């Protein structure tokens, strides 16, 4: 295991299966959303998880918080296996790990005031009585850049960007060490996206939060994260420092993904787009899952699953490719 020992949260060999609803007597075919994923987030570090739909990035976020149990593998929080913790300990530990969702409209209870929802975490974990918690709400609202007097309002009175700030305030209310942000800006307009990205960057710097930032938008990830994990069809393709990966993507998939992302700066320079589409996770290709769309695929890519290995001469960078050494 290469993961550094001082990791705050670490996932080891995480596999997660979903069952398509079968008939009355069969469980249906298992679909592996995640297959043997290793990931670690250090204190104060921001790790970006990128990939297209079906790559398992959202599932990974939920498994890391044990909102979904992994089918195989384990998640360690400060070295403790979340699966073996008694229910009460796990509930108490939830104070320290929080989640921010993609959809700012679905993530807030439409029938309760935003103040009550921000206070929830403090009340649940006994950090404050109801009245004390309500007193702390204005400060939290101010911290995320909202009017402290708006605690008594209902979610529908706020815009999408404001709701996302409220969701961040709710996550911050328990003073967590670790936050998983699942596509927190992809539902927002461009001009609002920047506001929320900046907010997350500021809070991370201010509070020393460890952040797992899940996104399909490479540019946002590059902006916010120290390290990046690129996923495809339930497996990690490449991992390394954000600056390095963007400067010189190594894995054929990372390269294709970067090339396909439209950019204001490199207009019209797009190479021939990647052929085909992401295969269904119910019927993944054998061997390397990317081989069906890979320009460098060879017969041996169909035979064995490539392991994530350090790229020769590139330090912390690791890629899962049989042809790592031969790539042009």
């Amino acid at each position, binding site marked *: 295991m290469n993961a550094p020992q001082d990791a705050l949260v670490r996932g080891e060999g995480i596999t997660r299966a979903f069952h398509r609803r079968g008939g009355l007597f069969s469980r249906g075919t298992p679909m592996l959303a995640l297959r043997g994923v290793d990931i670690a987030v250090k204190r104060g570090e921001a790790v970006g998880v990128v990939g297209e739909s079906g790559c398992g990035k959202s599932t990974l976020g939920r498994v890391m918080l044990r909102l979904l149990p992994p089918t195989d593998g384990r998640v360690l929080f400060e070295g403790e296996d979340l699966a073996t913790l008694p229910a009460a300990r796990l509930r108490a530990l939830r104070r320290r790990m929080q989640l921010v969702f993609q959809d700012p409209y679905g993530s807030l209870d439409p029938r309760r005031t935003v103040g009550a929802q921000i206070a929830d975490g403090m009340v649940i974990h006994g950090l404050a009585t109801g009245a004390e918690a309500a007193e702390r709400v204005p400060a939290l609202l101010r911290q995320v850049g909202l009017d402290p007097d708006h605690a008594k309002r209902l979610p529908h009175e706020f815009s999408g960007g*404001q709701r996302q700030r409220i969701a961040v305030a709710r996550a911050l209310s328990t003073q967590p060490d670790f936050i998983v942000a699942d596509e927190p800006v992809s539902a927002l307009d461009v001009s609002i996206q920047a506001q929320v990205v900046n907010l997350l960057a500021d809070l991370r710097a201010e509070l020393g939060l460890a952040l797992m930032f899940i996104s399909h938008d490479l540019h*946002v990830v590059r902006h916010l994260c120290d390290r990046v994990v690129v996923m495809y069809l339930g497996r990690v393709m490449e991992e390394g420092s954000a600056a390095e990966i963007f400067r010189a993507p190594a894995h054929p998939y990372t390269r294709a993904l970067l090339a396909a992302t439209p950019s204001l700066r490199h207009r019209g320079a797009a190479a021939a787009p990647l052929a085909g589409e992401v295969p269904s996770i119910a019927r993944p290709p054998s061997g390397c899952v990317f081989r069906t769309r890979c320009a460098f695929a060879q017969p041996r890519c169909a035979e064995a699953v490539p392991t994530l290995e350090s790229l020769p001469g590139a330090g912390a960078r690791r890629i899962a490719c049989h042809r790592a050494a031969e790539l042009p």
Partner: protein
Amino acid sequence: MRRSSIRALAVPGVLVLLVVLVALAAPILPLADPVRQDVANRLSGPSAGHWLGQDEYGRDVLSRIIWGARVSLTVAAVAAALAAIVGTLLGILGGYFRGLVELVTVRVAEIVLCFPPLLLALLVVTLLGPGAGTLVFSLAILFAPGFARVAYAETLSARALDYVTAQQALGARTRRILFLTLLPNIAPPLIVQFSLTVAAAMVLESGLSFLGLGVVPPSPSWGLMIRGARASMEQAPLLLFWPCLALTGTVLVLNLLCDRLRDVLDPRGKAAGRPGFLGRLIALPPAPAPRQAPGLLTVDGLTLSVPGPKGPIEVVRDVGFTLAPGETLAIVGESGSGKTLTGLTVMGLLPAAVKPVAGSILFTGRDGRVRDLLRLPEPEMRSLRGRDLAMIFQDPSSSLNPLLRIGSQLAETLRAHGVRNGVRDRVIGLLRQVGLPDPERAADAYPHEISGGQRQRVMIAAAIANGPRLLLADEPTTALDVTVQAQILALLADLKRAEGGMGMAFVTHNLAVVGEIADRVLVMYAGEVVEEGPVADVFAAPRHPYTAALIASMPEGDAERLTAIPGAVPQPWAMPAGCRFAPRCTLAAEACRATAPALTEVAPGRSSRCLRWKEVA
């Protein structure tokens, strides 16, 4: 609750309350004893002592009707309440925990639904014998699965919602999630179900009593009264009429309340009203038909409005642009900018609520004739759609009819515009042209059998089927993954090269995509065009602060911090008086807040709606 909701509920609510109050007040009202017989005066008509007459035993009909309401309402309400409590509990538990719990709660409850309702009630009556207690029990058994089903379905969908997951992530106990978060949010459909159940229980109770298997005589009950009056209907038809009226009236009022409750509490099922395409209303005054128009499409002064609570709201104001043959124009803007509505107006596909109030859309068709699309009668518009004008939409998975084969949907497009021979070959050819790997097989496939990117290719094939002059693409890649987006953009570029004179209007929110595909760009903000010009020039040197800020806020540069635009897009009913961007603009001055700037030409082929465009760096 809003005032309109209260008004909607007022009439049926007051009526239901009235029925309940009369029933409750039965013991204190000056009524005759409902069971005292007076055989001498049997079947006598209305009199001063007996307003509604006397029944076959000479009992007072009015008194029996009011006391009967008491029995019917009590049985129905108690049964519905019991069913609601038990059913809701089973449904919530089953829906939240799934697995084994679901099996023993919801699935078991559903077995009850295998029995036709009246039959089940009769079975219970057989086992326990008739009587009010039996009635309540059997009705409760009967209706509990209905509640379980609603609660289960609602819990299932609510459970997947982020705010419930958020409670789990916060570490809340299950009990807290179930009763503080889930229950209040699934309550509305359950309340509707409750009022529905009370009405259904009343009908069933009276039906059983009518058969002589419900309420035991001589207790008054509407069903029993109808049963009794049937025998003497030739002598005294009115006796039949009164209980029928009472029963129907009460059920009607309850159902009405239920309908209104559903509209107020659970607005999902409510459709938006008259569908748009059945008669496009041409509300604009006719304008002189132009002979010549610059370019392929010239939109001028287009203004769209929707009805608001305080008069019409202009959602698109004074939009104008020109599109030359073979040119690609990108219309870019955030949500609420009016970019999609502008596109739909060109196609004549606006939702019914949105009305064009000013402007013109001049379009040069394949026949060289210039038409004002805004004033074109629907039949003529229809013959242009799909032939001269074509459109592709944002979500390829909902733009195809899931029940029809792909080939058949393409074929109908060809046939609608007069192609009669070799349709199948044309279809296959089109599918091949848009790069589907196995066109023959794809033509016979249903939409769900192919991937999202392929579906968008099919939509493009349908759009180009009749060789359009103008292709409108409304966010055609937004729902797709980036690698697939790149493929679709490449395909569109190829098609444009192949079809020399075809113009394209590409609606998008993504500036980077604009750079990939468009020749010129039209930037919209809050329903107005704020800047227009060639893509390269606009990106290199924007002449409107909004364009500049939008470009700066793209997370592409190496800057530590992104440049964010403060605030949010103003709501259409609360537009600033002056420049609509002024409240968020770093350059805004007094003049900007006072006067709305006009779109002015700032360079040949470039215009900006800004008073201080010279200062935009």
